[in-house]
């Protein structure tokens, strides 16, 4: 059980503060913030999510730049408290539409109302957005999104209300505000739009050796759902028919057992409480009655070999005394109907590098280059890369000392971040999303979106 719950801004201000048991001395928020900020002095080491100061345990998660913190004096289950904190953040987001410092400050009374029901005397009661609805009387004050959510409208697929096939992109655009609307707020006109969103979000981790060989690769995926459907209709979600789960008898990194081309093999997965797996073994269909708000239907992990979306070549060579040249080449190995965005490459340079001059390819647009003196980091940003395209960056380095050693050992590895909408690295798909109809005229909007993020995309040199 927890003793206190509070949310701190990045500057350390209390935005909400709730003491459930009155057993932790005053000033805990300050003690916590000081500790997090000055963890291990100038080592630059990040404070762990859980630590103990004078017999008080502090557990925190960072969400949207805010610190969600719980304190306790007892030997709690850390997973439980961290899950709870994360869940509180999600419930608040369900109510406010957008979770940030501004929206929280404007709605703190509503948040107190939520906290009153979510936890009693330190024991979690309910975190279901649905159940909480009947206890919440404040109307959310909706704040501006500021900018579009990371998925953006270009990333949308829409499922036809009639058939099961996927309509081509662009045939119907989703309004950009839809994902950020509150589950309780009514739209202008008092009517709620009936719709449900399904996002397949994959985080990929790949490490390439200096010769371009894939050392390790893994996909951590989530099928996330956000439902604005009234009356809790049952939903059927069909995945790839030949989806297979688990690799019995083999180490999960045993690539030799590649089962039939095109087949998606997951190492393991888990499911949300509401999911029923009655037909899962038969036809890979998940049945569920989605609760209101956002929740993960299924999390999965895959180490089966997959085609990495980007190939990167990197080279660093001496070019006379005190000089060297860097060449970075990135190639997008996916269909030209797909565009990756917010691509960035980082490469640590030798610590005696003093100056870098960049040379982009002729006609390059939407690209930025930078050299960060402090940590000797070369940064190359590309606003977007269309599938099949190839881009090159050249850089001339100037050193403060003669290089008598191997400069490749002093630099790298190159790491890359990107987001690819409409792309699923694992080839996992939602074949169809069926809503059990209440009436002939009931045709809610159904949106299925795919997105792949780089989690750790590392190219050694």
């Amino acid at each position, binding site marked *: 059980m927890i003793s206190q719950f509070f949310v701190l801004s990045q500057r350390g201000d209390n935005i909400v503060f709730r003491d459930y048991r009155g057993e932790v001395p005053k000033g805990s928020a300050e003690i916590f913030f000081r500790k997090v900020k000055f963890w291990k002095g100038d080592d630059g080491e990040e404070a762990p*999510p859980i630590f103990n100061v004078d017999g008080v345990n502090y557990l925190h998660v*960072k969400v949207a730049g805010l610190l969600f913190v719980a304190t306790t004096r*007892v030997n709690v289950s850390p997973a439980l408290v961290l*899950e709870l904190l*994360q869940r509180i953040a999600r419930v608040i987001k369900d109510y406010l539409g957008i979770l940030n410092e501004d929206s929280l400050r404007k709605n703190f009374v509503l948040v107190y109302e939520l906290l009153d029901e979510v936890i009693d005397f330190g024991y979690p009661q*309910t975190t279901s957005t649905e159940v909480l609805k009947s206890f919440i009387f404040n109307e959310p004050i909706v704040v501006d999104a500021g900018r579009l959510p990371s998925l953006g409208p270009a990333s949308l697929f829409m499922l036809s209300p009639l058939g099961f096939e996927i309509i081509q992109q662009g045939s119907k655009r989703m309004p950009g505000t839809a994902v950020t609307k509150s589950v309780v707020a009514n739209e202008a006109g008092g009517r709620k739009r009936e719709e449900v969103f399904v996002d397949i979000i994959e985080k990929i981790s790949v490490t390439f050796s200096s010769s371009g060989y894939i050392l390790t690769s*893994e996909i951590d995926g989530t099928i996330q759902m956000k439902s604005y459907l009234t009356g809790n209709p049952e939903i059927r979600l069909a995945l790839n028919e030949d989806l297979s789960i688990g690799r019995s008898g083999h180490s999960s990194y045993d690539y030799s057992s590649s089962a039939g081309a095109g087949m998606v093999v997951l190492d393991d997965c*888990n499911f949300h*409480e509401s999911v029923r797996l009655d037909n899962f073994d038969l036809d890979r269909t998940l049945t569920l009655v989605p609760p209101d708000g956002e929740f993960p239907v299924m999390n999965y992990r895959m180490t089966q070999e997959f085609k990495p979306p980007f190939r990167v070549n990197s080279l660093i060579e001496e070019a006379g005394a005190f000089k060297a040249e860097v060449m970075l080449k990135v190639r997008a190995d996916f269909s030209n109907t797909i565009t990756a965005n917010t691509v960035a490459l980082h490469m640590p340079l030798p610590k005696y590098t003093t100056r870098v001059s960049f040379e982009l390819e002729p006609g390059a647009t939407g690209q930025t280059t930078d050299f960060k003196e402090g940590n000797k980091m070369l940064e190359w940003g590309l606003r977007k890369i269309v599938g099949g395209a190839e881009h090159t960056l050249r850089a001339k380095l100037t050193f403060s000392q003669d290089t008598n050693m191997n400069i490749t050992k002093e630099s790298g590895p190159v790491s890359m971040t990107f987001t690819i909408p409409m792309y699923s690295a694992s080839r996992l798909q939602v074949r169809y999303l069926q809503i059990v109809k209440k009436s002939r005229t009931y045709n809610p909007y159904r949106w299925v979106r795919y997105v792949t993020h780089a989690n*750790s995309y590392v190219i050694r040199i």
Partner: protein
Amino acid sequence: MAPPVQSQRLPPPSQPSGKGEVGELKTQLRQLAGSRAPGAEDLKRELYKKVISYMTIGIDVSSLFSEMVMCSATSDIVLKKMCYLYVGNYAKVHPDLALLTINFLQKDCQDEDPMIRGLALRSLCSLRVKNLVEYLVGPLRTGLQDSNSYVRTVAAIGALKLYHISPSTCIDSDFPVALKALMMHDPDAKVVASCLSSLQEILTLEGSASEEASKERELLLSKPVIYFLLNRIREFSEWAQCLVLDLVSKYVPSESSEIFDIMNLLEDRLQHANSAVVLATINVFLHLTISMADVHQQVYERIKAPLLTLVGSGSSEQSYAVLSHLHLLVMRAPILFSSDYKHFYCRYSDPSYVKKLKLEMLTAVANESNTYEIVTELSEYAANVDVLIARESIRAVGKIALQQYDVNAIVDRLLQFLEMEKDYVTAETLVLVKDLLRKYPQWSQDCIAVVGNVSSKNVEEPKAKAALVWMLGEYSQDMLDAPYILESLIDSWDEEDSAEVRLHLLTAVTKCFFKRPPETQKALGAALAAGLADAHQDVHDRALFYYRLLQHDVSVAERVINPPKQAVSVFADTQSSEVKDRIFDEFNSLSVIYQEPSYMFIDKEHRGPFEFSEDIGALASGASPDNSVLPSQRVEASDNDLLLSASEKEDNRGTATNGSLSYSAPDYNGSSTALVSHSPSSTVNTAAVSGAPPTASISQPIIEIDDLLGLGPVMTTTPTPALKLNSKTVLDPATFQRKWGQLPIALTQDYSLTAQGVASLTSPQVLLRHMQGHLIQCIASGGQPPNFKFFFFAQNSEAPSGAGFFLVECLVNTSSSKAHVKVKADEARLSQDFAVLFQSALEKFGVS
């Protein structure tokens, strides 16, 4: 991510400058108090909001108490809730004013809207004012019988709140009984869960004082209650499921079929997306199977995939919590994870606290088949821009080298690190090379050649410098420049801040002197002079000791200071296996995160329910005189005293262990800081030659392997002939005591007792006679239910008289039906076989 430093002291923008605002609020609230004007409610809401926001940022608005209460006569539920929040926050500091609120709260408790009833009851119980408890009992009692489940849930937790304000009122009003009844009969799972959490807490707190409550507490763990809860597990919310699972993990089934029933029932909980549910389930599985080695191992295999999926799916904080538990399991049974090593590779995006755990796991799982790949990967991190991780990686490579027999390639890597010429890499590597040489002296030629090239000027860190100096002293015959490097270091004696380095300089230069006297004599003189003048006590004492020793007889001095060395076989773990076992017992708690048992960081009053290990801990620490079954406390203190700080404990352990293993060849190691400052009461010679620093003590390899696994006989690595015990063995108490003091703990294990066995264990004599039947003799016993303590011994039938003894300390707790066993053995390699015999004997207790 960290906000800029200078902004920290700036007040937040919304903070009022002084008392003026609060005063103004007071006036405005007063004006509104009786107002029925249209829009008054909206105005009130705005004012209330302001008050709450001040409260949040820590401004004292308690002076508005009476105004807030006056304004609370409203039907607006949003206003009501804000008022409740305010009252709950300040009632404790204004007990007199809190009385004002009782009236309207009690009235609201009878409202026709169940939500108002629930809210009011919750607020009423949250006032935390002792002299108001009389007003709580009535509404609480009604609340527990309310027709609405929300109100009943609130009342169930309310009873716990009452207990915290006034335990006697809660107990005298029979609330525990009411809670128990409600828990077993309420149709709503939420009410059941609330009753359970309240009951657990009340009975645990009350249990330390009242026999009755402690019995009631035990009853929560009885089969009917456990099965009742388990059968409804799917009705509970995920949080309540965790509560139930936590309770189940402490349940001791009476037969093994129960274990499988429970596991089958809970199997699908391992596929839950909530990591708290999964870890709670795993905890149940691990505890249920702890004494069934093969099933226990299957559990490990089963939980691997779900754990790895959880590590990948949540936020980095959540994944840290899960990874910490995986870390614990990997450390216990590295062999079972040796093919999963790639999962423990660091990712670019991992925070440093995650990377650290992964490095430790990589170190643990390294074996013949994967070492090459792991070390290659670690070498990549060594060049990392993240200095902290680079250092940790180098240490990991070193640790792997010390674990392995085939170190050829690893030594090459380490030497390559030295060539990288990064100061922190060099520093870390030097320390490792030193340890490596102590274990594998045969590598000295290769290492010395490279170390000789390291300029002492580039080494700043004390640990690294000490390591370099030690190597200079140890291998001075092979390093041409050794005397001169040492001399130059001694020349700058006064600039050397670290006492550790100065101690090492003294020893190194003396050793160098024995090998190359003409070249070193001057430096030795200078070092002894500087040492004698040193302000640091240890340095001064060591210099004086060397000086006198050399004066007495140079050849004796050489025998003491530079005797032939024995290679260190295994470096001791920094954490004892007892501590590790305790952490494992506390699976799914903060202990796993901190890697410390809970008694080290939780105050006694806040320890959770049903902590058996605590009782055993108190027994083992020998704190209570009742338990001192051996005449001498000192023997026990050497390895049982859990209250000793870690370093003290390791020191003791090291001494005892070293003593027993190196009788014939006293092993002196140059890095010993304990050399001169060792306890004067023991004979100086023994102390001086065996005093080892914590990291350098020796223990038996077999301990490491078997004990960490904790998996019992299945995992035994070396097949040994079946052990037979001597049927006519004798051992007098004095010899037992001496041996107990000298021998290291060969293994520690927990066994379960059968229900019948527990039932018959009314006095120590019963078990004593039973074990005798299995050729295990008892030399001392004591205790009363539920805690007993025994010292047993047995002898290998093939050993000559006076040798081949097994000594056992056995703590039995009848309430948990567990036996905590420590085995020491003359022949440590046989201790696992002996443990099997012991376990089977114990398991038959009460059955035949």
